[in-house]
């Protein structure tokens, strides 16, 4: 006992104690639910069996039922559209802004930091604001587009099935741009300046310098940022809840909202768990890419 105590105060035991408690906490509250999720996706879960652990196992029935539902493929396609369009938008706007602020003028870093407010705001508030901006008859975005002659009539962003997914994508691009920009700025500031000076002496113009120095030097940052973008986009839930609720008629529904909707609106916990398992596999793949691309940095 005494040896254990002194090890806790002054030896290896101190480190092990510090690290094992939080790891145990994380494994209980994240790892265990993860396994439980997989178990539930093979079970029949209804309101009556919700309270007991021993529910009838049904094999792959939940998976088969899920893919037999007519809305499954459209929702998966929506998810792909949402992810690709959001990442592309966030990345391009974020990269452009990062390049602009990289030119380094007085006040640049302060103004750049100001963009990050979108990132610290509650998702519901961002959703509420965009809900109002995108509103059909009185929305300010429609007004601006109309005045600039881009559209002739109002677009009903939230209720038109052709636009409702794009309403959420616009809001999500706004939300994620700042974070992309900050990460990109970190990558840019790591490029040695003398590379540019040397190429300038050799007579390379701005365009050539961008393609031959900036982009190749940013390759690992870009990989990490796109993987992170995938992870964050698949986590986006609040905007759907605040802008379209997945409607109209699932036109803007994506898997991460659908899984919640199945569980907590339709009380079909088994299906909710099933779709969660499928999506978590995607997220895991993305995070392996992310961890690999930052591996040398992870080790310090």
């Amino acid at each position, binding site marked *: 006992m005494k040896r254990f105590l002194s090890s806790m105060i002054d030896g290896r035991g101190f480190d092990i104690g510090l690290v094992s408690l939080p790891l145990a906490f994380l494994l209980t509250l994240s790892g265990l639910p993860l396994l439980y999720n997989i178990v539930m996706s093979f079970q029949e879960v209804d309101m009556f069996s919700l309270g007991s652990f021993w529910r009838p196992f049904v094999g792959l029935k939940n998976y088969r039922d899920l893919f037999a539902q007519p809305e499954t493929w459209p929702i998966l396609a929506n998810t792909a559209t949402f992810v690709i369009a959001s990442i592309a938008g966030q990345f391009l706007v974020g990269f452009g802004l990062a390049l602009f602020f990289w030119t380094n003028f007085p006040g640049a870093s302060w103004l750049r930091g100001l963009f990050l407010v979108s990132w610290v705001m509650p998702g519901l508030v961002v959703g509420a604001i965009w809900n*109002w901006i995108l*509103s059909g008859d009185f929305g300010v975005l429609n007004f601006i587009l109309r005045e600039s002659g881009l559209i002739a009539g109002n677009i009903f962003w939230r209720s038109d099935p052709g636009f409702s997914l794009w309403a959420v994508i616009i809001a999500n691009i706004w939300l994620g741009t700042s974070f992309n920009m900050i990460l990109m700025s*970190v990558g840019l500031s790591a490029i040695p300046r003398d590379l540019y000076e040397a190429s300038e002496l050799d007579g390379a113009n701005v365009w050539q310098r961008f393609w031959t120095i900036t982009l190749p030097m940013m390759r690992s940052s870009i990989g990490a940022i796109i993987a992170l973008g995938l992870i964050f986009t698949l986590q986006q839930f609040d905007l759907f809840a605040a802008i379209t609720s997945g409607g109209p008629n699932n036109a803007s529904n994506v898997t991460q909202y659908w899984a919640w909707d199945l569980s907590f609106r339709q009380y079909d916990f088994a299906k909710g768990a099933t779709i969660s398992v499928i999506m978590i596999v995607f997220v895991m793949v993305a995070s392996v890419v992310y961890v690999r691309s930052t591996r040398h940095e992870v080790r310090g």
Partner: protein
Amino acid sequence: MNTVSRDRLMLVIAIVLAGIYLFPLYWMYITTIKSGSEMFATPPTFWPTNPQWQIFGDVWQSRNMGRYIWNSLVIACGAVIVITVLGVGCAYVLARYRNIWVDIGLFLILMLQVLPASLMVTPIFVGFSQIGLLNYPRLAVILAIAAKSMPFFVVLVRATFMSVPQELEEAALVDGNSRVGAFFNIILPLARNGILVSAILIFMQAFGEFVYSKSMIQAVELQPASVGLNSFMGPNTNEWNNIMAYAAIYVTPILAIFVLLQRRIVSGLTSGALK
């Protein structure tokens, strides 16, 4: 073109860009103080002609916002306390050593960081209801948020500990401190600022958390402000000035903290997020 005028030009462009980017925030505040008819005017007014300042008090009263904000505070503070108490030590150990076990631990933590809350809420809800934790819904939400956000905190704080020179700890040990003593007297005070900034970031996230609260807290009097805002926004609402007032009251404290601590928050974030 000389440097000064180039700098001025760039600054003007930057301010315009920031203005465009922050327009949604401006629109929120401006809509709040518009009257009911001005709000639906075509063309919309970009500067209110008849500001309605009393709307903040009205919405605070009628939506019972004091209770919602209080619940948000309880949940956010609880999550920050759990995460800080558990996460600081974990980050310290992960920063101090460099071996295969640390790599495995880091990998585990990074993998747990990426699980989307809306996908994890199903098993957490069912599990919590089975062990009876849903009878204490705010505690359940605190635990769920803590599990979700702790990895991010550990990654950020670990970067802080990495910047504390290890020689300082060694010197303290040579001087006769125990490991515990060195940790609390030397290392923690040096890492205080980084821990504080990370805790503030976690606080902001937890203050706006929605999925877990929406799913696990049924009783209205225990719901946080994010759920309150969600139930305020019906599908066919037209009280946009009231909703924007609610959003403004909810978000202004966070924005104030952010603007005050902007430099530290941004540098804390950039040191941890990509590393």
